[in-house]
Every structure is written in C-alpha cells, then in structure tokens.
C-alpha cells in the first residue's frame, strides 16, 4: 500500500471496522435516500441527520487515474491512484490492484470490484477489475 496509515475518528470508525470485516460500509440518508461518502453524521446533500450505515455492493467504475512513478512514502512504484465511482453513487479515491499498471489495462469506465489489503492495523479498501472484464 502506498500511503500513510489512516487514523480513524469516532465518526469514521464504522467504515474502518467494516473494512476489517471485509465489508465496504458507507452511509445512506433515509430522508433523501442518497448514499454519501466520506462519513459524517448528517447528509451533505439534504442536511438530514437521519442517516444509517449500509454494506454496499463494492461494485464501481474507473472514473480517472494516474500511474504514479515517483517515490511516495511506503510505496512500491508504479502505483495506480484512481478515482472510482461506487454503484451506489459516491466517488472515492483508491488504488487499482490485480492488474499490471499499464494504460492499456486501465480503460476509463472499467468495471471494478472492491477488495481489501492489510496495512499495519488497517484493512484498506482497494479495487480490482471485476470478474469477466479482464
């Protein structure tokens, strides 16, 4: 894993606990029904505090990325630093794994599936090309 270790806060703990259990958990607003990311105790779209944690599908698409070749702390370069969009709507930063980091392997809109990599005390959500797309 390329970056520093995250330091969870009480409002983000369910996300990291989910990752440790092999689940991608994000929040959904029960007022406007939209999922959102990153975690916070109210909906950034409509302002409602009626929000719940959900285990989501882990399906996503590749929105954009760079293949980093310069040294980053704790990184084996090259690493794919990617913007992905979850099937449920929210975008998140991630890494693309399970594929050689070459542009020809990484067309935009590529279907992805979440997987988890252990780093120190934390499991980190990352994404691999979905089955059947390789």
């Amino acid at each position, binding site marked *: 894993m390329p970056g520093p270790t995250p330091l969870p806060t009480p409002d983000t703990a369910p996300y990291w606990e989910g990752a440790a259990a092999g689940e991608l958990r994000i929040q959904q607003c029960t007022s406007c029904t939209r999922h959102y*990311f*990153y975690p916070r105790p109210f909906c950034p779209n409509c302002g409602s505090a009626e929000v719940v944690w959900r285990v989501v599908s882990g399906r996503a698409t590749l929105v*954009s990325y760079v293949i980093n070749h310069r040294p980053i702390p704790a990184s084996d370069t090259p690493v794919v*630093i990617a913007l992905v969009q979850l099937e449920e709507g929210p*975008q998140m930063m991630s890494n693309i794994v399970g594929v050689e980091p070459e542009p020809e392997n990484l067309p935009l809109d590529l279907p992805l599936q979440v997987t988890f990599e252990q780093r120190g005390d934390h499991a980190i959500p990352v994404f691999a090309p979905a089955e059947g797309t390789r």
Partner: protein
Amino acid sequence: MSTTSMHGGDIAIVGASETTGIGSLPDVSMLNLHADAARNALADAGLTTKDVDGVATAGPLAMEVSHHLGITPRWLDGTMVGGCSFMLHVRHAAAAIAAGAADVVLVTHGESGRSRVGMGGRGPNPSSPQGQFEAVYGAVTPYSTFTVPALRFLHDRGLDREALAQVVVTQREWAVGNPRASRRTPTTVEAVLEQPPVAWPFSKDMCCVVTDGGGALVLTSAERAADLPAGDRAVYLLGSGESAEAPMVSQMADPGSFRAFRLASAEALATAGIAHADVDHLMAYDAFAHLPLYMLEDIGFVGRGESRDFIAEGHTGKGGRLPMNTNGGGLSYTHTGMYGMFAIQEAVRQLRGEAFAQVPGVRTSFVQGVGMFFAAAGSLVLSNSRP
C-alpha cells in the same frame, strides 16, 4: 461624498515585486522571502512599513509577517486556501480598504519550496478526511493527487495526453531567454511526450518546476494612489470572485469541470462589468498542464472541448488574441508551492508595460487561481485604467 467600492477601479495595486532572487535560494528562509518581497514592493510603491496598516498572507501567520517587518496592523487576513490565497487576499483587502478598515494593505508570499529553508513539516493530518480517505492511497503529493482527474477531462473530450504537451510547448515560448525562468529553452510536443512519466499521463515538463521565491503587493485606494510617486503605474481592481468546492480531489462533483472556477470567474466578470471579449491577457494558474485547459473552458473563454485546439492554434501564444501565462507559468517560470502570487505579479507587469515578454497594448488582465488542488478558486480582473 463619494462612496468607495471594492470593485470598479476604486482600489489599486500601487506596489508589486517578486523577491530579488528566484529559483534556488538556499540561504534565504521562508520568512525572509516574505520580507524581501515586501520591502521590494513597498519601495516600488514609494511607501514604507510605517505606512502599512493591513497585512495578509498565507503560509506563516499574518501576525508573524507583520511583526517580522515591524508593522503595527489594524487589519489582518490569514485566509489560507492554498496557492490562490493571494487572489482572495487582494479581494478581501479591497473590501477592507473600501470599508475603511485599512488604508494600505501589504499582501506577501514567500516559500522555500525547493530548498525547504525555514519551512515547517508537510503532509496531511492522518485523522482528517483527506488523511483517512485519500493519503492512504498515495494521493498525498501534488503530482499524484492534483493530476488524478485529468484523464477524465481528456477522455470525455476525445483528447489525449498530447493536449497536455501542447500546453507545455506553448507556454515555454514565453519563458525562452528569461533569466528568472527555471525552464527557458524551447521544446516540442514530441520531446515532452517522450519524457519518462512522473504520474502517467503526466511527464516531467507537464508538472511545474519547484523553486524558492516570493512576491508582494501593496494596495490602497485609487484616490490615494493618485498622490503616490508611482501613481501612474497603478493597476486597478475591476472585479473579483472566490469559491471553494471539496478539499479532497476525490469529492469533486464533476472531475471534468471545476465548479469553483465557474463560480469565481463568473462573479469576477460580473462585478467588473465586462465580457470575455474585453479580456486581452490571461493568467491561468498552471501547477500542472491540465489546469489551463480546465480554466479556458470553465471560465468560458472557449466552449467545452475547444481548449486544446485554442492553444494549439496559437491563440494563447505570442501574437495570439488571448496571450496566456506570459511569464511561462508554473510550468516554466517558477513555482514555489503557492504560485498564485506570481500570476498576479505577471498580470501587473503586463498592465504596466514592464514584462520580460511584454504583450503590446494590454489593458485588461484576467487572473485565475486555484488552491489546495481542486479545492478553491480565486479570480481577479485587473486593468491599467479606471473605467
């Protein structure tokens, strides 16, 4: 009794200067880069620190700069939105002067970006949203973060990384021969594309230089400017705007367009009461080569998907109808880390007729800044005459 406005030319930049040296300055601390630029800018204005009653800066605290220079402030602004902080400082200073909260405001920048002399630590707080949800993936350096949305921008317009190289080549022309520019020899699209990737699709020359330096501005009312020895070199603020979106690149609503560019620039044009066609010089903050492409489209100088051709056809180069980044930009001239001050300095030089690569007859310059990657934006409309 007349009313002073923050816009419409009632507020003027009466002093402007960069640091005496620029590039690699291993013997000058960050704070003394501020001081050097400030003293140069005050000398340019024909004023001293005793005339200054307002200080704005980003990086160090405003009171650290004011104390260091021996200024007794009655107005301070420490707005910190990254590299476009100085656009916001100009805007806020204009409002303060118009409201009577300050008479003479000094805006300073200094950064030992290359030599790291007198600089603090770097890196995000690991418990912040950025630390937890971006830095863990290596999205921690500018070249591995600010660059991430670019492929989506290019892909959606049927463009590829050749468009980034076009930006580099066109801007380099402005810096050729300038002894203060870090990259000052001509290059070609092929040469830029063939360089090893830093963060593909970005090669080295598609990323800004990393330098030491600074700059400062002195602002006061146009009324007072007229009484200063350099009053005929005053540059007037016609309009301005600012906005912010997400402090995390991953949370941009649209990776192919930046809302804060759209909003800040629209407010700047509206408050100036001008149209795009009235602008004859553009500074478009270019930490990386994709930014001028976003800005040309998001400000509305060209339509969606037209930015690459606009540049490749020469419209932003010498003799073009919208000369852009005429110092060579962050890609060629200098980039200390928070480049916005240098974009304003070049706009002032062009409007005064004192630039290294002077464009004939510049009257109205638009300065577009960006900060904290795709987080914040600040826009200024500057002119060498009052409307």
